């Protein structure tokens, strides 16, 4: 693949700098399956001409992030099963591909936003393993504040 595509991953970029252009040996990526890697590369290929994110961006001070308006290609790209979605997030995290990580995380966050607790359970197949007393206590503690 093109170097510009691979360098969307800061991890790969650093590895390539360390190894040098002349070396043709394969780079092992034990934490990423072939299927997910394919998806990740699809993203990198599409975004290869984007300006690279500024590593000094302080995320604590970041104003409203660009990810809030997800572009159309990205929105279609990220329409995948939950399982694939989480694998993409983990891969993007490991490979340090900020745009893809932001896209994946924002997608999950939007799925959760505004949903009630039972709706969230149903969506992610979460088992309610509280006793009724526990559940009631936490409801009392959190409910009023959750509509912020």
């Amino acid at each position, binding site marked *: 693949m093109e170097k510009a595509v691979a360098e969307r991953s800061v*991890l790969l970029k*650093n*590895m390539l700098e*360390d190894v040098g252009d002349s070396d043709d040996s394969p780079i*092992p990526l*034990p934490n990423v399956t072939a299927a997910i890697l394919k998806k990740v590369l699809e993203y990198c290929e599409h975004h290869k001409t984007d300006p690279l994110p500024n590593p*000094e961006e*302080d*995320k*604590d*001070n*970041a104003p409203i*992030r660009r990810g809030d308006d997800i572009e159309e290609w990205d929105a279609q790209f990220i329409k995948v099963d*939950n*399982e694939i979605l*989480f*694998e993409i*997030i*983990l891969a993007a*995290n490991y490979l340090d591909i900020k745009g893809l*990580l*932001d896209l994946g*995380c*924002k997608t*999950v*966050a939007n799925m*959760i*936003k*505004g*949903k*009630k*607790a039972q709706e*969230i*359970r149903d969506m*992610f*197949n*979460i*088992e*309610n*393993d*509280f006793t009724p007393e*526990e*559940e009631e*206590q*936490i*409801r*009392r*503690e*959190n*409910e*009023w*504040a*959750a*509509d*912020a």
Partner: protein
Amino acid sequence: MTVRRPAKKARLLSGFCTLRSHPYGVQPLGNALFDSGGGAAQRPAADRGAGLGRLAALDDAALLGLFLAAPHVLDDGSVLRLQRCSRALYVLCGVDDVWRVRTLARFGGAFGAFADSWKNTYKARLHAERRPQPGECAPDVPLKVGYYSDYLFSAWRCSSIPLDVLCRADAPENIDRRSGLSVQEFVDEYDAPGKPVILTDVVTKWPAFGKWNMDYLEKTVGDVEFRAESVDLQFKTYAAYARTCNENGGSFEEAPLYLFDKYFGRRTKLDQDFSVPPYFSQDLFHLLGHNERPDYRWIIIGPARSGSTFHLDPNSTSAWNAVVTGAKKWLLFPPNCVPPGVFPSADGSEVTTPISLAEWFLNHYDEIKSWPVKPIECICRAGEVLYVPRGWWHCVMNLEESIAITQNFVNDCNLTEVLRFIREKPDQVSGYGSGEKACSLANTLYSRFSAALQETHPHVVQQEIATSRSAAKMLKAGSTKAPATNSISSLFAPSTEDESSSSASSSSFRFSF
């Protein structure tokens, strides 16, 4: 009949201590193999798979780092609703550090009276803002549901292991302590060669000494804003937070919020209560003018367990750090000797270290035994001031609640190193904040400083360039070792040339898989 229980003593057993138990019942992952899965009265701990469902694909670090502690990704309300979904999510969403991040993100320094946890502080502050009031706001009562997690348990361990055990407070000290030094003696024995020292007769003469404490500061500057990491807050707000840390015996958090403020001089009259020690009176960045010099002085206040992880001071400057109240544990490694567990990038622009200073002490302190260069190790106490020469890697842990003043400076002893640094690494110049103007000031620091030095130090700028060029030539000509820029390194390094060149800063960090 009363059962007498043996007094709880902390014993260091290959890194472990008996700790008080976690409010949510978090235990290390390995314990899952031994626990019987519930006796007669006890329910098994929360099941991660069932309690997270499809979210279980993300490990605890990812769930916390990418979502729960990321207010710009996932809103607070979502976390509060997630917390009601299952016991596993109850524990994860209840991690108090999540609520520290969210409280500061949402309310900045105006988070009001500090409750007994960040989550309760958040709730109380939110409640105060709501119209109409949504009934009573009772503080959370932790439910001990049980959860196995190395990630969470490690953080818990870092926060609750007794500090004197964690930081080896009784380790032998190997720093000079001096009093009655003339300025020339200080220069000859410490500043010129770049050797740390504690001076014991300076701070004790300050008006601040014996006068300053948290109560005094709250009374005199309680309404003034100070900087604590990412927020500005009134001193009284910070003081209430510090009080909670103290009430928990210094085990409230893994890395307490640290007050580190550079504007106290213009916002208060506190600088009238101390003076720059005569040994440090030369301050060449002063030539740049007050508005165009890098940041140079801070008041530092923090509870026990607050501190700074390993770092080099900015722009290759030297520093003095004076403890007015409290006690600071220091580890200092000589120039070009990187500490264990610390991984600077090849050019030094980035440094990778463990998540917290406590974690460094837990996981890396013992490596010092086999490290080629041993650090200076000491505790700087109230009334003492420590001199940190340029280029020394150091970390500092507050063993008690501490109030200190620190200043960085350029003088004749480190001028060459400073010029070299700001000339060769303008992108690593710091002390101007961020933004366009800051960038411009950082990029022009070398040219402005060289110009400012023309009158008093007409040759030093050219000399620095010349020695730098000849050093580069020597390296190119094939000598394996660069000429020592600092003779102190050789005092601390082992005697063979091979070993000392392996500790040179040129080794780059490589990820391992």
